[in-house]
């Protein structure tokens, strides 16, 4: 029998705010245990939460970027359960009125080849809500220690519809969502720091069946590759169970990315009754149109929209855009260079091929369809000495023929090291094409035409490329330093008149 998988993802994204969501103490990662705490974080007797407006701004912005409906009121609920990482033994969250409803994440599936754009889809979202993160347990041999530094960090839960069917779709969903969050300045989404965490709900059903199968929740998918591998593994596992004549039980499973195996954590019977109720310590917050409009004005163009625009407006090939658009700073850098140079593709080539190589990133895709998307080190454009104006100046030098391609490559490396303008480097290193005496050049050209009757005949017969046969001897006579553009022009003039 053929089976179809149905996948829904629950993604937790830490919101990048200076302070925690319900108190003024700083939020952060990598600090000494229990230093980012205060009486509120530790839930000391008598403490009260006060909402950090920046966290609400961030989730509204996320919702606007993903096309969600924004609720007119932000309401808070308590989710009650006992666990040592939760200082109050309830989590402040949003239950029946999430701040964002609906919306979608646009994804791109792998194309038929690296230079071919893949199919685009929109994965619908169910909801996004805001809550507080919990602390972290560190288990020793005889005891467990709790670090509350993470507790109270604002956390968004982004829930997709069960609308994906392959591990590749889930992978594409996560990479696109991650890029959107980074673009919007909402989170850095560093999975190693737990800033983005993903659980997957997976079920299978015979192809053609419309009813959903029994779902299994897969946890601890702590890299984007593990998400893909874990889902692929779980789909295989479920098919194998059914083919053996077994049944799928509703449960939560823990995926181990290192070994590629999973094991059951708990079954449905052990599910909590969270006893949600509205938090009486927090007043509902009205979100009016002016608030939404202010945040909408801060929303950037998203990567796929930018990609479509780069292709339409700059006539860039897909491969260039798929590198340029996934890093907002890189895309902005490109656009500035493109505008200053007036030659978008040349500027794009310099950036993608040479600048990223120099930044230690050659070939590392930042594209969501590239397998290295997550591990790829972001080029540090901030500190890079080559500014867009340098790229534009170099493009112009090459375009005018003043600098030959090989020389330009040398100039680029030097420019990366020193930050000098290409003109300065070309002059200093004698890399400019020779400012040829026009009489001398004209003589060399005449000599070359006269020496090659065959090519002359071919050119006259309409074979344009025959002109190249005359250029070699001219360049040789010029010891390689003639301006190729000038050589071409001179030859054409002589051929036309002669």
């Amino acid at each position, binding site marked *: 029998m053929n089976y179809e998988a149905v996948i829904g993802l629950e993604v937790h994204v830490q919101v990048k705010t200076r302070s925690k969501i319900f108190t003024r103490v700083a939020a952060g990662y990598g600090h000494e245990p229990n230093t980012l705490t205060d009486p509120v974080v*530790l839930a000391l*007797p*008598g403490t*009260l939460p006060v909402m950090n407006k920046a966290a609400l701004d961030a989730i509204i912005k996320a919702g606007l970027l993903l096309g969600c409906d924004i609720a007119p009121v932000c309401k808070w609920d308590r989710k*009650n359960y006992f666990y040592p990482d939760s200082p109050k*033994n*309830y989590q402040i969250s949003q239950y029946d009125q999430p701040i964002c409803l609906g919306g979608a994440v646009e994804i791109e599936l792998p194309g038929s080849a690296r230079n071919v754009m893949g199919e685009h889809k929109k994965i619908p979202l169910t909801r996004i809500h805001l809550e507080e993160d919990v602390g972290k347990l560190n288990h020793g041999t005889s005891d467990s220690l709790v670090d509350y530094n993470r507790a109270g960090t604002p956390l968004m839960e982004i829930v997709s519809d069960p609308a994906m069917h392959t591990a590749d779709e889930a992978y594409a969903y996560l990479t696109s969502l991650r890029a959107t969050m980074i673009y919007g300045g909402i989170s850095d989404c560093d999975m190693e720091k737990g800033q983005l965490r993903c659980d997957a709900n997976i079920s299978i059903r015979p192809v053609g069946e419309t009813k959903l199968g029994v779902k299994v929740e897969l946890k601890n998918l702590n890299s984007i590759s593990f998400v893909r591998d874990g889902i692929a593994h779980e789909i295989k596992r479920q098919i194998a169970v059914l083919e053996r004549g077994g049944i799928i039980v509703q449960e939560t499973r823990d995926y181990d990315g290192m070994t590629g195996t999973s094991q059951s954590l708990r079954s449905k019977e052990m599910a909590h009754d969270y*006893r*949600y109720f509205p938090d009486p*310590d927090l007043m509902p917050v009205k979100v009016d149109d002016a608030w939404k409009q202010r945040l909408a004005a801060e929303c950037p163009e998203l990567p796929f929209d930018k990609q479509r625009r780069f292709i339409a407006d700059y006539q860039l090939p897909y491969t260039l855009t798929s590198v340029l658009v996934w890093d907002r700073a890189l895309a902005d850098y490109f656009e500035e260079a493109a505008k200053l140079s007036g030659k978008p593709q040349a500027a794009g080539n310099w950036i993608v091929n040479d600048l990223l190589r120099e930044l230690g990133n050659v070939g590392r895709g930042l594209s969501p369809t590239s397998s290295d998307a997550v591990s790829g080190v972001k080029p540090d454009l901030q500190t890079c000495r080559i500014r867009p104006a340098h790229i534009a100046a170099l493009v112009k030098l090459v375009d005018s023929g003043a600098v030959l391609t090989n020389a330009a490559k040398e100039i680029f490396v030097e420019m990366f090291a020193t930050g000098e303008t290409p003109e300065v480097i070309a002059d200093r290193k004698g890399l400019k094409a020779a400012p040829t005496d026009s009489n001398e050049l004209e003589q060399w050209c005449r000599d070359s035409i006269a020496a090659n009757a065959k090519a002359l005949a071919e050119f006259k017969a309409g074979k344009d490329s025959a002109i190249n046969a005359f250029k070699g001897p001219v360049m040789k006579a010029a010891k390689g330093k003639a301006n190729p553009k000038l050589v071409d022009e001179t030859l054409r003039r002589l051929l036309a008149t002669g």
Partner: protein
Amino acid sequence: MSSDLIFQPIAQLAVALDAKKISSVELTRAVIARTRAVDTRVRAFNSFDEADALAQAAASDARRAAGQARGPLDGIPIGLKDVIAVDGQPLTASSKMLANFVSPYDATVTTKLKNAGAVLWGRLNLDEFAMGSSTENSANGPTSNPWDLTRVPGGSSGGSAAALAAGEAIATLGSDTGGSIRQPAAFCGVVGLKPTYGLVSRYGLIAFASSLDQIGPFARTVEDAAIVLGAIAGHDERDSTSFKTDIPDYRAELAARRGPWKLGIPKEYFGEGLDPEIGAAVEQAIAFYKKQGCEIREVSLPHTRYCLDTYYVIATAEASSNLARYDGIRYGHRSKHATDIVDLYFQSRAEGFGAEVKRRIILGTYVLSSGYYDAYYLRAQKVRTLIRQDFLNAFREVDALLTPTSPMPAFKIGEKADPLALYLCDIYTIGVNLAGLPGISVPCGFTQSGLPIGAQIIGQPFQESSLLAIARAYEQAHEWNTRHPIL
């Protein structure tokens, strides 16, 4: 000298302090001496720190000597219910759960009292986590009523009421969730004010039921209550439920506001179960206002009979969640007999909480459970809206309502063993909390056996100035507060 000082109202003591006729150290010593003399019998205090109080008093005297006195509370010893956090002092909620807990921070009201120069004096007993109406549910044992040591002082702020009545403080703070300030004030013959929900910050108040809790003063006079309220009221950015409103000079308003007022008498508050002596005393208070030219009008609060049920759903639901944090993990009582993490929760909470607290946690957990939420919690919130609407409807006709504070005077310690019988003590006070209104209990007589009686005046939201003025008019024409218990 001492006994003169300890029963004087703040207003008089402040004049004496400013005139340098007495010092704060002298006043504080008098309070300490009195506490030492009587508290082994009254047992109003969970703990006190004499050296700390005297140091605060000396600092106050130094300010006054330098001409930098901060107002009428500067140098006045004020006791705090042991649910209000004071940096460096124990904070126990009269529970074994927090027996060894010392607060590392100040409640907002604590900060405000410190800023006003008050001498913070002692941690006052209560029903564990403010759950009760008699101060019998305390891990430290019951507090006695200074008027009759075999009787309860009321609760849950029984320690705050008893300490003030016994002269062990000049004023005290309590908290009121269903009558926990007004009822003990009535039982102990002092003034007790529960402000409008949101007027006083709850930051640093150990939560019982967040949507009902409110801190307020116990004082010898209405004027003193106005002085303390002025010091502790006001918006606090640490409490999202605190209201942004201008705080008037309550004391000045007392002089400015003179009746006559329109007073409503809710007929539901004078029915079955009301002690006849209390009924008669309140009738006399009504007669007084009538004589003063006030218009007296009978009003109806038809949903009154649902108050108790509504309260015990909402308050316990919130409490079950609020008290979840007491788990022995980060602080508080931790069982030595636990075998694993789940067992640690069970054992620590089983050992740390008393019976009434457990009863309410279980009830609250039940009403929030999956499948019961709509029938209990959601329904109770709807009824709560109707109860509030009753009051607001009445306030279209009248300025304030006048009722008994409690259906009965102080009862014997151990007399009400049935929790439900005890819950009935609060039938006249609970509606005010559900509706978020201000209410004050003022002494309005004594029973034949010498137990104090309180009358409750209920005001409109944030109209504390009117409420205090109405209460003050009665107080000025009567001398109930000049009597003191003999200990």
